[in-house]
């Protein structure tokens, strides 16, 4: 079966993913209309692990445009990139090359005009906003260049909010937030507000918040751009450790060449297209 004819896909465990019954039924209907049992959705030439790996996280033929008429621009033109599970992938490229647009799609924050987006084996284009929100909530941690901490909350409350968003019933969130901050060397800064922390400390709090609830995917947009050299190296190492010690999948968008030595793979975008792919480690 040609790849492009595959229905919405959950390759291993349809009952687990996508998160809602509606989406699961949609997958089943799509599979049925394609004349397949759900289990038949695997590509015949791939084993389960290979199939999961091939569409775990990424985009296929993704085209994105903004604006109208003469002002219309295409940040991405037919880009196909798949990110491997349990690896740290680096996306580089000049300004305007489409890096952040790509990251937005991987984070279910933007839908392509054309093409497919897969997150944790789920084709997310067809999902409703509520379902995409649920995927962000359960599967993805975000690290932003501007930290995006809640300025009125202390460090520990920012991280606890991360736990709360992933599991509102989690009663131990403050304790768990404290443990995470301890791990990142911020045990003594728990009660400080973001504006009382250095940029490096703020970014570590942001990473802790992103990791609250143990999401399998971490998306980081220029996480070291606002940091000095030492703080930047710390963040690089922390994210690298997430891959090595916890098996998380990390995608970093950055201009910073220091990331190359921490990344398993580097993808270079230019003018909305993949210019180069290389394996670093």
């Amino acid at each position, binding site marked *: 079966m040609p790849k492009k004819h595959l229905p919405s896909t959950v390759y291993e465990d349809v009952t687990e993913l996508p998160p809602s019954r509606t989406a699961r039924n949609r997958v089943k209907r799509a599979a049925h209309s394609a004349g397949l049992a759900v289990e038949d959705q695997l590509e015949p030439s791939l084993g389960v692990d290979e199939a999961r790996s091939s569409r775990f996280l990424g985009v296929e033929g993704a085209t994105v445009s903004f604006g109208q008429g003469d002002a219309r621009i295409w940040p991405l033109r037919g880009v196909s990139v798949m990110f491997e599970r349990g690896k740290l992938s680096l996306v580089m490229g000049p300004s305007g090359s489409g890096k*952040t647009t790509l*990251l*937005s799609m991987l*984070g279910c*924050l*933007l839908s392509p005009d054309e093409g497919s987006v897969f997150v944790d084996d789920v084709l997310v284009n067809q999902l409703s906003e*509520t379902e995409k*929100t*649920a*995927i*962000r*909530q*359960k599967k*993805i941690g*975000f690290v*932003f*260049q*501007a930290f*995006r901490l*809640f*300025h*009125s*909350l202390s460090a520990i*409350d920012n991280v606890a*909010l*991360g736990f709360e*968003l*992933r599991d509102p019933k989690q009663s131990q969130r403050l304790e768990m937030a404290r443990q995470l901050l301890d791990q990142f060397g911020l045990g003594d800064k728990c009660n400080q*507000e973001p504006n009382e922390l250095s940029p490096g400390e703020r970014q570590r709090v942001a990473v802790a*918040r992103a990791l609250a609830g143990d999401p399998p995917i971490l998306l980081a*947009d*220029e996480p070291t*751009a*606002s940091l000095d050299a030492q703080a930047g190296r710390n963040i690089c190492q922390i994210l690298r450790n997430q891959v090595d010690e916890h098996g998380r999948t990390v995608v970093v968008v950055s201009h910073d060449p220091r990331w190359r030595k921490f990344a398993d793979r580097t993808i270079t975008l230019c003018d909305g297209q993949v210019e180069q792919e290389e394996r670093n480690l």
Partner: protein
Amino acid sequence: MKLAWQNIIHDRSRFSVTVLGVSFAVFLMVFQGSLLVGFLRAASRLIDASDSDIWITARGVQAFEFGTTLESRVREMAAGVPGVMQTDRVCMAFAVYRTPKGKQQVVALVGADPNVGKRFPVPDVPELAGEISPDAVLYDVSDRDLIAVPALPTEVEINRHRASIERQIQGYGAFLGVPFLFTSYRNAIRYLGFGPDDAMYVVLRVSKGSSVADVKQSLQERLPEVDVLTRDEFAHKSRMYWTIKTGAGGAILTAAVLGFLIGLVVVSQTIYANTMENIEEYATLKALGAPRSLVARVVLTQALLCGTVGSILGLIAVIPVINHATSLIPWIYMPWWLPAVMVVPSLTMCSLASIASVRSALTVEPGRVFRA
């Protein structure tokens, strides 16, 4: 919800500005509302003070202050209608009042029979027997400067007749800029030059078991040349006259409506601006996977907290101001229900404004979090 509360208390200056905006709006709404309610109340105060069921007036009388005399037979015929238990007379006319020092002042002289009502200020009632003379003249304490009597009792002149000012009362202050004086009916018609059987208003009480509507209809059929109104109808007519047909009432009504609308706009604008200042945080919340309901709850909680605190402060500020204002505007009146009536729409506007801003928060593009 901790985020909502922390957002509020973290930026105290912004919170203060928001609360100040809401307080000002509530203050304005309650103060203007008190002016309107007080004005309406004053416009029918004497009608409401009567323990009556039905008022008979000359045809076309629009307000208590502008009555004309009825033929003497009206009272007699009314008394003969089945179901009428009691008839009393009330009159009101403008008169010239002269103080002991010779200062002249136009006054509105009101005379009433003793049984018109327990709250109706007349001197010849059993409760005051022995304290003041049956033909004493009463005035409201708020008109003290206009009446200008050095002590009680004081001899004055009303329409060149000698009169004795003997007591101050409260709650019946000048409504037209002309002070009210109250005396017995027989005394009033003497000052005003009415005949002994003349009446301006015939006030009726209906016997128990009789229907006010039926008695009113019988009276109107028997007395087609006069207006027969229930007490509430005449009070309403009087209020509408002063509110709608006079410049003063129209100005107060307009000011009250504008105060209400401006208050609501101020509340809405304040809450909306407050929400929009946090729009980046809502985008972050959405990006992190917060469901729409959580974002909406945070925004609504912030709005209602600001609205509640602002409303309470606004009320705390307006109550003493209204109390103080009674020395300048005696008829201003804040009933117990007015703050609730004003605070409820104010909080509703907080909610509506926050819902409008929630829409912005909910539709904010979460991808903007990637912008530095």
